[in-house]
């Protein structure tokens, strides 16, 4: 769906992106990872058509991305913003209309979403009356209201409590199940593991790691096993490293000497560990 080819972009004093290439398949959930200031926001702005690359190309369905595609894209920027004086219902409808929905459709869809989140009672409230978390929810709705084919979410979970965070996560999965392609930029590595199929890790404007999440975790495995042993009445769980060239059976035999093996599981590195390892 999205093809980024050799994209570079530089600002006055800083090279924000250096020959970035990535391909985001239709219907996937794609993670965009990287430390602060790595160039994620610049890349996202290129994907939404807000900025143009200095060189290289950014394509959506084979066509160069431009602002005229706004109706196909839903973008939740990291810096949230709504018209403070507007009422919730009005606000959602306004964005729906701006991105090409008819008045009736916008109205209907607004009702649907308010109902889905169980917040019909907020409809006449002004944005400034809402708490931060409530406003975030409204912001999420304004992002997805026009049924975009591509959803770009920059830190979608920030500002949410665990319950609401879960609700947003479920909505993302539901939309993805309906065929929406999702690009997720986040520092929350746990959600990357649960949601994303593929990722790109950007550091200092370059892609330093790219590919399928499971495959990357396999690639970074360090032959560490989580082993639970029973010694008499006690149970003990330990991390034990397998030696170089040692087969699984040999390894089992070795640890079986220390007690009865109850559980034996290879421990793949978390995305968090991989992130820290790659970036630092």
């Amino acid at each position, binding site marked *: 769906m999205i093809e980024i080819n050799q994209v570079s972009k530089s600002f006055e004093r800083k090279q924000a992106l250096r020959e970035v290439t990535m391909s985001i398949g239709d219907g996937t959930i794609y993670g965009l990872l990287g430390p602060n200031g790595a160039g994620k926001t610049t890349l996202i702005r290129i994907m939404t058509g807000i900025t143009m690359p200095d060189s290289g190309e950014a394509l959506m369905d084979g066509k160069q991305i431009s*602002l005229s595609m706004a109706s196909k894209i839903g973008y939740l920027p990291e810096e949230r913003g709504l018209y403070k004086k507007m009422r919730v219902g009005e606000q959602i409808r306004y964005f729906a209309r701006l991105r090409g929905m008819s008045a009736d459709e916008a109205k209907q869809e607004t009702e649907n979403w308010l109902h889905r989140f169980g917040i019909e009672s907020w409809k006449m409230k002004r944005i400034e009356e809402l708490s931060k978390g409530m406003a975030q929810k409204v912001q999420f709705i304004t992002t997805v209201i026009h049924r975009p084919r591509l959803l770009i979410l920059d830190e979608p979970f920030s500002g949410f409590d665990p319950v609401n965070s879960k609700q947003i996560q479920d909505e993302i999965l539901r939309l993805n199940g309906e065929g929406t392609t999702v690009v997720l930029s986040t520092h929350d590595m746990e959600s990357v593991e649960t949601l994303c199929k593929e990722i790109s890790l950007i550091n200092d404007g370059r892609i330093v790691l790219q590919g399928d999440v499971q495959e990357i975790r396999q690639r970074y495995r360090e032959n560490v096993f989580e082993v639970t042993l029973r010694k008499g009445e006690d149970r003990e769980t330990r991390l034990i490293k397998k030696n170089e060239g040692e087969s699984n059976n040999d390894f089992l035999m070795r640890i079986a000497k220390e007690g009865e093996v109850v559980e034996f599981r290879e421990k793949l590195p978390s995305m968090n560990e991989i992130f820290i390892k790659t970036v630092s």
Partner: protein
Amino acid sequence: MSNIGLIIGHEYMTRVSKKSFIIITLLTPLMMIAAIALPTWLMTRTDDSKKQIVVIDRSGMYSELFRNDDIYTYIYSGEDIDAARKTHQEVTGFLYIPGDLTSDSTSVTFYSEKQASAEVVSHLKRLLNQKAEQQKIDASGIPELKEIMKSVKSDINLKTVKFDESGKEQVTSAEMAELLGLFSSLLIYMFIMMYGSMVMQGVVQEKSNRIMEVMVASTRPFDLMMGKIIGVALVGLTQFAIWVVMTLMASGIIMSIAGINYSIGMNTEELMQSVETMRAQGMDTDIMNAVLGFNFRKILILFVLYFIGGYLLYSSLFAAFGSAVDNETDTQQFTAPLTIVILLAMYAGIYATNHPDSQVTFWCSMIPFTSPVVMLVRLPFDVAWWEIVLSLLILAGSFVASTWVAAKIYRVGILMYGKKPTWKEIWKWVKYK
């Protein structure tokens, strides 16, 4: 697909439905009436509390002059000031006349415990002046001098008559033309400033609210800018229309009330007398004619056209500079030059009221930055059609150019956060493809 219509609607509705808009729109005319009526009312009110004045007359020539009336009571005293102060407490003041006023007019003094009120002072001054004048007239020895002086006094009122197209005479008034021109140019200046900066505030607010990025991902920056500019312009025109209607209604009400007052407040004799004097002075009818001599419809239409043109020119620049900064305090650096230009236009307008046909005025009514203000000053003085058309065309061309430049600055500016750009950088934004 263009979203301008949608954005215009949003900008218009959010502003017009605000309580502050409704209050200001309704209150401003009332406040303006109050600003004129209150001083007038205060001036006509006289202070009718009783006043006691101790007169210390060393010359002995003015004892006849001060006669007690409803308000003023005079006490003659032979003491000096210090002694009189002790004997007469709680009086309004002490009038000290050291000698003959015809030879020494400066040494009369009024002493009081509190600051002497202007009314008391002018009352005493008038009495003393009258007396001194009379003394001088008597001393001159010319018998009928008083009558002669009265007949010499003159009050000439220059009537101005302008030939209209059909060759008929039309009574006009240069003062009225000046007043009308100045008023409408002030109004247009106020409108451009007010609504121009409203556009800028809107842009800065969207930036500081961080809503800009969402908006830019939803619609073209040009639509966003033009939608805001046109939306705010419609707010201004709505306000203006309401004011015009209110003025018409108010003047209707005032006229009918005044009519009623005439018949109730005056008896027939007085009424006849006042009409007589008015007719004698040729006052009433002339002003009416002078007012009717202006083509109000033309002035009104051109006011709207010049407002739209001048507003578009300035507000697009206001929008551009608003987009360059991310908080309201920083806007001043960029609006200062604009404010200076608008002020210059205002001064040119004031100059034009006194010199409506000068070369400078002509050029100022062609230069787009000053023409909205200056041309409105000239309008009551009758301007050739080609001049108006040319000046409007120049204005239109300029705002097309200015919105084009502004859109370029705006497009880059709205997503720039963090640092205040320099003029050089803004120039670079204009040149971006």
